[in-house]
């Protein structure tokens, strides 16, 4: 009988029930969309912030003192290099997944035919790596120097061009009258090479007076086989907190539990620490200019989205509450009739609640799917990539829908139960 009554309501009053389901679907879709976007916005903005370039630099221990402070040059600074064969290890650390991009650098001096001395930097452009995990990664400055403006020609493509290619800074190109497609003769300390100019870039900085060549070419010019000056790493990091700052100074000062938390969180300092573990004689340090700003911007964006989400959740909740209350109240005459023929309060509440909940579940599921769609639209329009769906959104939305439906229907039901059947049926309340 109970089931028959419910089926009867759902079938006969389907218009009204559809409206409730529609409102609940709207609210649920809003909640699902906002929660998904909010939970993923950190990762997305973090990716965008990678346009600022590396947030971690790795240099050999004591190289800074030798090269920069004492102006030592050439062979005397031997030993102050990192090893090229260890570069792949960066992708094997605990937080390997968070390392988005990295590139090694090797600086060497060289002379042009007119006698002028220039700095030649060897690096990866779009270095293709097969990782032990089976993944592949294209790393290098083509993506890490996204602010470089290509004036002429193309980015040097390591896969298709031979090693004797170079990219020339705008100011150097102007001074030497170089254009894309020209060749340039460069004499290094160990070899002299004829390089093919593949492109001319404008970096808006010191790099405009330099020559960028593939790493092996720079090693050949400087006679520094297998050596690397520094590595720039672009990693997704968690903003530093007090623990991370303490750990950065001295990881040994932490308790075992704290150490584990720190080591297993993607702080810039713990990633640095892990890089130092795999690269011999290296010092990895966060680039404060990038790391700190990223932290601040990420935090602000997330907080902003949290607050907007809360506002829209409140809006959705109140909207649903409203409509549920309204639609329950409308049925006063029907409920009056039920009471008149002897229905118990419990039976009436059970009936109304079950009806509403069947509708709510129906609306909630549809709303959730629609919300997921909205989230994807936002993700694709703004960030050009899909929003990852976090499983925790499902229970949150479910709890929200149930709670809101309950809160919306309880006061209405209580009011209905207080009605006197005679008055309602008479039509004069």
């Amino acid at each position, binding site marked *: 009988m109970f089931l028959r009554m419910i089926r009867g309501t759902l079938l006969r009053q389907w218009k009204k029930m559809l409206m409730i389901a529609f409102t609940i679907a709207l609210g649920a879709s809003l909640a699902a969309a906002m929660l998904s976007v909010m939970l993923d916005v950190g990762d997305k903005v973090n990716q965008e912030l990678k346009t600022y370039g590396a947030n971690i630099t790795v240099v050999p221990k004591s190289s800074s003192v030798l090269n920069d402070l004492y102006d030592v040059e050439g062979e005397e600074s031997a030993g102050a290099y990192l090893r090229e064969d260890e570069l792949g290890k960066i992708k094997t650390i605990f937080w390997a997944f968070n390392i988005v991009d990295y590139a090694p650098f090797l600086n060497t001096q060289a002379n042009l035919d007119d006698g002028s001395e220039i700095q030649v930097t060897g690096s990866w452009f779009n270095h293709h790596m097969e990782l032990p995990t089976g993944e592949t990664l294209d790393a290098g400055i083509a993506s890490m120097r996204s602010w470089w403006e290509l004036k002429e020609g193309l980015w040097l493509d390591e896969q298709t061009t031979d090693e004797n290619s170079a990219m020339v800074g705008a100011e150097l190109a102007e001074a030497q009258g170089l254009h894309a497609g020209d060749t340039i003769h460069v004499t290094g300390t160990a070899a002299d090479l004829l390089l093919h100019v593949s492109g001319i870039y404008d970096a808006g900085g010191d790099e405009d007076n330099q020559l960028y060549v593939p790493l092996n070419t720079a090693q050949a010019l400087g006679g520094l086989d297998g050596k690397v000056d520094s590595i720039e790493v672009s990693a997704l990091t968690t903003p530093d907190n007090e623990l991370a700052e303490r750990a950065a100074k001295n990881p040994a000062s932490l308790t075992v539990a704290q150490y584990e938390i720190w080591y297993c969180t993607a702080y810039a300092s713990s990633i640095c620490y892990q890089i130092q573990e795999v690269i011999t004689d290296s010092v990895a340090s966060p680039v404060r*200019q990038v790391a700190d700003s990223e932290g601040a911007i990420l935090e602000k964006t997330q907080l902003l989205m949290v607050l*907007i989400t809360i506002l829209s959740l409140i809006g959705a909740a109140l909207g649903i509450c409203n409509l549920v209350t309204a639609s329950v109240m409308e049925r006063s005459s029907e409920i009056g009739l039920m009471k008149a023929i002897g229905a118990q309060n419990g039976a009436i509440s059970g009936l109304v609640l079950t009806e509403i909940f069947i509708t709510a579940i129906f609306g909630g599921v549809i709303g959730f799917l629609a919300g997921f769609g909205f989230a994807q639209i936002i993700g694709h329009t703004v960030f050009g990539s899909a929003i990852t769906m976090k499983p925790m959104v499902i229970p949150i939305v479910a709890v929200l829908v149930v709670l809101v439906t309950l809160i919306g229907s309880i006061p209405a039901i209580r009011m209905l139960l207080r009605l006197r059947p005679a008055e309602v049926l008479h039509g004069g309340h």
Partner: protein
Amino acid sequence: MKKRQMYMRMITASLMRRRSRMLVALLSIAIGATVLSGLITIYYDVPRQMGAQFRNYGANMILTDADGSFTLSDMQQGTAVIPADALVGAAPYRYENVRIHEQPIVAAGTDMAGARATSPFWRVEGEWCSADGQILVGANVAESFRLKAGEMLTVSYTPETAQTQEDETVLDNTIDLEITGVLDTGGPEEDYVYMSLADLETLTGESGTIDVAELSVSANADELSSYVDRINASVPAVKAHLVKRVTASETTVLSKLQALVLLVTIVVLALTMICVATTMTAVVTERRKEIGLRKAIGASDRSIIGEFLGESMMLGGIGGVLGVVLGYVFAQQVSINVFSSSIRFQWLLVPITILVSILVTGLSSLLPIRSATEVDPALVLKGE
């Protein structure tokens, strides 16, 4: 006149008598209007507020010499072009090779307050320099010479006139400075020492010139390039450049963020508007009986529609006003919590919010009213 009075009375009376029902509708309209005004205020303010956050990346414009001698007054002429409220900080830098413990080191003379404003990412262990006679040492320098905050440091400089002499150290200028802090940036700054411009001038014996000035300007890409053009055109003594790495990236990230807030606003807005519409539909559908009764005693469709429309538009108006106030409160709270600064009130939003909320409630009740008036009064009254 009489007629209008009656009309107003009917509308207000209807609103007052069905108080609880109307309050529910009003609440949903007010929420819709709050979302509208609150989110749009935030949308307009995000670039300004986030822009301030992006200034953490440091200088986005540098001034260099254009006419052979770059002085502090040249720099001031340059910075004067930029409006005071957009200029976050400006710092002059002069670099000289000095010696510490007989080792060559690059020393920079600057204005410490300016440097602190243009480079908020500098982390100083100890204190920032607050007066002349003090020095900040880079972390690498501090490590190699085992220097700590609080110690005195002798810095020496060989003037150009003495550099040709046999025994140059005799003619060295020296200055004793107190180390107030160790500078940690993760960048090349860690290899330098920083002192006030006045101290560097005393040390070198030459004054007046600087090498470069760093400017941190809170502005979007177009404004920045217009400032650069204006400085280059109006101040012949300096040449302004943008720090491409910072400006290009800021534009990318900022535009994405604004697009995100815009899209979110549109989605939330569309959904709340539909919510308002469904509520209004429910409110009107409920009153079919009343409409039937009115028709039975001879009211024309027009007058019924006019009356109901007036009622819902009045609701919309009140909800809109509430929404403007609540939306501003919400935006202000968000701004204070997220950015710790107050929000700029968009006056234009007041009429827009109220108008939109009147329109939405009016339109969303129009359809159900029309369908209600088409019903045969006899049927409605009979309860079928």
